[in-house]
């Protein structure tokens, strides 16, 4: 609190000069006592360190550009009078690697609790976390200062990504393993080698789907419906290394989540892989709950030199469709991977996306 420090110093100076010019020793004594009191409090603070605990109360999720309100609760468990407390915190979007400072000043007494109401608003999706960088304790007159480091107990707030319409031309067929033996019990599919259901012929049904044996038996045309194969043939790679452009990484995350959502709606079980603690983490996504569960960890960037392509190089052959969402296209030759990127590229395996195009077309073609 530089202003208050200067303020108090000026007050002391005023008293001292007044005392000198008015030849009034008591005023000088008061000014000295002013300073001595602050120093005593500082010494007490140093000898008996304040036991501070900090906790943040925030919602779990929110939407983009929505103002989120929460609070930081600071508790002083010691018998030391804290006086003026300055909390210097930072609100960080872990995906886009952008942050905003948060500074609050409160007064705390002995064995007391203070609540600091805060709010934030993130324009981009991601996981927003609040960290306390340091806490500065001032005496009541703000002349002396002591810095303490207090960890903040809090979980990240997931700023939910915006979902887009995804057109999966060709992708769906490649998402199924023809030789696979597992099928969805509840969902109709395309694979007629495994019958999902039998019904009467309706106009428009393909003649290939007619079950001739049953049709002859029942004297009416019976059509078989194919089952939905559930083998996990699709791998989605999200390159969540530190981004260069926050808007682009946010857009990629949104498109990736939108794609995953569309696949879920189409009953396509798929795997999402991203970096966590410099290691690739594979998650099988079968339904919405699986997707929701990984979102808080997915929407974070990883500060690592590791290249995700190297990590998953051996595994990509096991999947029929491999999609990679990345800000920058991999420079090394990657066969069989389709890149969805925000960087302009002439590579035929790349799909370049940008916000303007999405807004104008209304959907994304992958």
């Amino acid at each position: 609190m530089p202003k208050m420090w200067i303020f108090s110093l000026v007050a002391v100076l005023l008293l001292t000069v007044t005392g000198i010019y008015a030849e009034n020793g008591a005023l000088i004594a008061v000014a000295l006592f002013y300073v001595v009191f602050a120093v005593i409090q500082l010494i007490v603070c140093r000898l008996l360190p304040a036991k501070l605990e900090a906790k943040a109360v925030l919602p779990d999720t929110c939407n983009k550009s929505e103002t989120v309100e929460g609070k930081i609760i600071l508790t002083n468990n010691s018998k030391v009078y804290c006086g003026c407390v300055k909390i210097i915190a930072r609100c960080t979007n872990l995906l886009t690697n952008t942050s905003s400072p948060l500074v609050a000043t409160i007064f705390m007494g002995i064995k007391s609790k203070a609540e600091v109401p805060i709010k934030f608003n993130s324009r981009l999706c991601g996981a927003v976390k609040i960290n306390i960088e340091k806490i500065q304790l001032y005496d009541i007159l703000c002349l002396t200062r002591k810095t303490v480091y207090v960890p903040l107990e809090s979980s990240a707030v997931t700023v939910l990504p915006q979902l887009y319409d995804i057109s999966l031309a060709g992708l769906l067929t490649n998402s199924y393993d023809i030789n696979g033996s597992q099928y969805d019990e509840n969902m109709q599919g395309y694979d007629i080698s495994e019958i999902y259901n039998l019904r009467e012929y309706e106009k428009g049904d393909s003649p290939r789907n007619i079950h001739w044996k049953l049709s002859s038996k029942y004297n009416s045309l019976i059509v078989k419906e194919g089952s939905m194969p559930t083998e996990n043939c699709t791998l989605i790679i999200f390159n969540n290394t530190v981004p260069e452009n926050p808007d682009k990484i946010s857009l990629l995350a949104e498109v990736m989540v939108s794609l995953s959502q569309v696949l879920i709606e189409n009953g396509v079980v798929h795997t999402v892989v991203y970096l966590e603690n410099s290691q690739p983490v594979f998650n099988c996504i079968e339904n919405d709950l699986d997707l929701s569960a990984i979102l808080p960890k997915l929407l974070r960037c990883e500060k690592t030199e590791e290249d995700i392509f190297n990590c998953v190089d051996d595994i990509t052959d096991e999947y029929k469709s491999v999609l990679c969402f990345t800000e920058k296209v991999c420079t090394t030759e990657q066969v069989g991977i389709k890149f969805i990127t925000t960087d302009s590229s002439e590579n035929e395996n790349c799909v370049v996306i940008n916000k303007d195009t999405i807004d104008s077309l209304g959907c994304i073609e992958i």
Partner: protein
Amino acid sequence: MTENNSYIKSAVVKSEYNNTAVCTMLNAVVTFLISFGVLQQLVTVTKADCSQVILALATVVVSFVMFVVGKYPKFKIAFYLLPVAVAGAMLVMVNVNIVNVFSNTVNGLLNTVGECFGVIMPQLQCSETSAVESTLFFTAVSSVLVLLNAMCFNKNIAVLPAALAVAAVLFSAFVQGVNAISAVLVFSAMVLILYKGRLCNAAAVGKSNSVWNKAATFAPMVFFTVAVIVVGGVGFLNASTEGLKVNIQSSVDDILYGNTASMPQGRLDNAQSYKPTDKPMLKVVMSNPQSYYLRGFVGGTYNGNSWQQPENKQLYKSADLFYWLHKNDFYGYNQLSVLSKQLNKNGSENRIIINNVGASTQYMYTPYELDSCSYDAVNKNKIADTAPVISGFLGQRSYTYTAVDNQVKQYTNLLAGLYNNDIDDKAAVDGYMNIESHYSDYVYENYLYIPQKAKTTLEGMLGSYKSSEKHLQYSTAKQSILNVLSSSMEYSTEPDKGSSADFATAFLQETHQGYSVHFATAATLMLRYYGIPARYVEGYLITPNDVKNTLSNSEIAIDDTHSHAWAEYYLDGVGWIPFETTPPYINVMESAEDISPSNSNDNSVSNNSSSKQDSPTEGYEQEPDDDSLLQRNSDFINIIIYLLLGIALLAVFAVVFILLKNRLKRKRLYASFNTEDNKTSAINSFGFCVYLLIRFKYINSERDIYSGDIIITKEYTEKFLQAFNIYQAARYSNHIVEQQQAEKVLELIDATVSCIKKKRSFIQRFYDVFIACIYK
């Protein structure tokens, strides 16, 4: 990590405390304290005669009413108008005398500055003003101060007026001396500002603090504030700080100007021993090498433990006299040369160059025979009684002046010449005597004081002195003093320190030992005891031995062993003459009369107690009429007024120029919306709308228009989207833009402006339309 607030914004929720009644009252109290504190100091500095009670009441009323009224949005305009109205009403009541009141205030301020720096300040022509008029004027000033403070509070920059108030109080303390009440008021305001922050946050904290915590928070500041108010008002413990200001000032002077260690520069407590070194102090070049007393520090006031130079405040009381004296080229430090030149037109001139290599640069070392000096180094407007006052923050190291031949050794001739009716220019001499008589009155008024303790000591030593004459005969007094000092006192360079608090008493009654400082102090007090105005002087001696066989214009090195202290007394009609009483030095310098410790003869010096002339004489201006003060109008004040007028005129021109420029810019902008080319018109119009939205914070940047989040009203949003599409088509496509489409975009401008106007206050709208010329 990127810190970019366009991606993520975070903030602490502001407490609702700012809108509460307690906060409003606190703001009002702080405003009152700061305004009244500064006002108190202004009244003190300008020496205005006002009713403090009325000023306090007016300030309180305006402060509180302003803040209470300001809480209601409908009356927000009254927040600003009220103090302006009060100020205007007060000034109207003062009516035509407002210029007179203002002039008196300025004169008071100029007098205060003059007292502080000892400079003759010009005065505006005006008549006396009544207490009522002064009170009304300062009530108007207090209203303006309240308004300025309140505006700062509204903008949450409360620290600024408090800081300015502190600066004003400290500056006033330096110039005039502090008004304890104003310091206490400003300090209290600062404490409350500190606590306002605490209270504002208290609401955010909620109920989590116990009563004990709150008490612990408030207790220290309540204690401090009460302590300051009590001690500031009662003022005990003064004795412990007496002299602190003087000591601090002395220390600062030592740092700035250097210190001659062998001489105490009037601080008699430091006169422990005399151990001069061979270090050169002055390098003197004379065109006509002669022996001189070079005066440095001159002490006029004795307080028992120090000699102090005549205070600026004391000198300024006789500012009118000195103005008239200086106008007639009469200065107390060059009387001998003036008289000498009048009596002896053929006297020679001695050009002296001083190079100060080791002595204090605070003083200009000049002889009694000083004639004239280069005014580049000298502040001519300074009221100087003892020596020319040199300018420069660190003093002066080198200066040149002229002097006449040594008159100290022949001052009796000067005295004789004064009363010789056969001299050529009798009229000039008579004129001189006329002016000198007024200066003599000043000298007798200011250089005869002896503290009681010293007086008692002198009575014991010299016997009780009562005479019907102004003072004892000079020769008798001097002989008596020399006899007493030579017989009873012993010269010692390391004298004992007596137990008495009074320096002279300790020397004369206890130790009987001392060096030049002791003897000079005692001699000065003894001369005063006999009714002869006298002063204590420290400086350097250029002895006859120093100049013996010295060629003209050759350098004479004056080292620390030449430092000396002596007494000087005022010889009526002639001026200041040195009086040597330190035994080893009595016969060092040449003197006019043969007075030695054992010689009691000499009646040649007559007691000139009535040397005043009654009638004015040619060649000099008429003596000042006691009944009317001379108004010191000078070119200086005219220059200042013209300068201020010039600056005001320039400011007005600048404002007018900026206003016209803004208007022209807006005119061209609006013209670009109505071009024949519909495409250009649409693009420009839409661009202007986006500019308005960004400027008035409806959106953060241009990117936001693509997000579709601009929701002011439903109708506006529809118009905006329509105009946006037209803009896109005009900007990025080859489509033709119809006249109707261009008009739709123009309509958006009006819609935007009307939305903006709804949210702006009257004054803000006035500013937007007529000053910043943003929209029509």
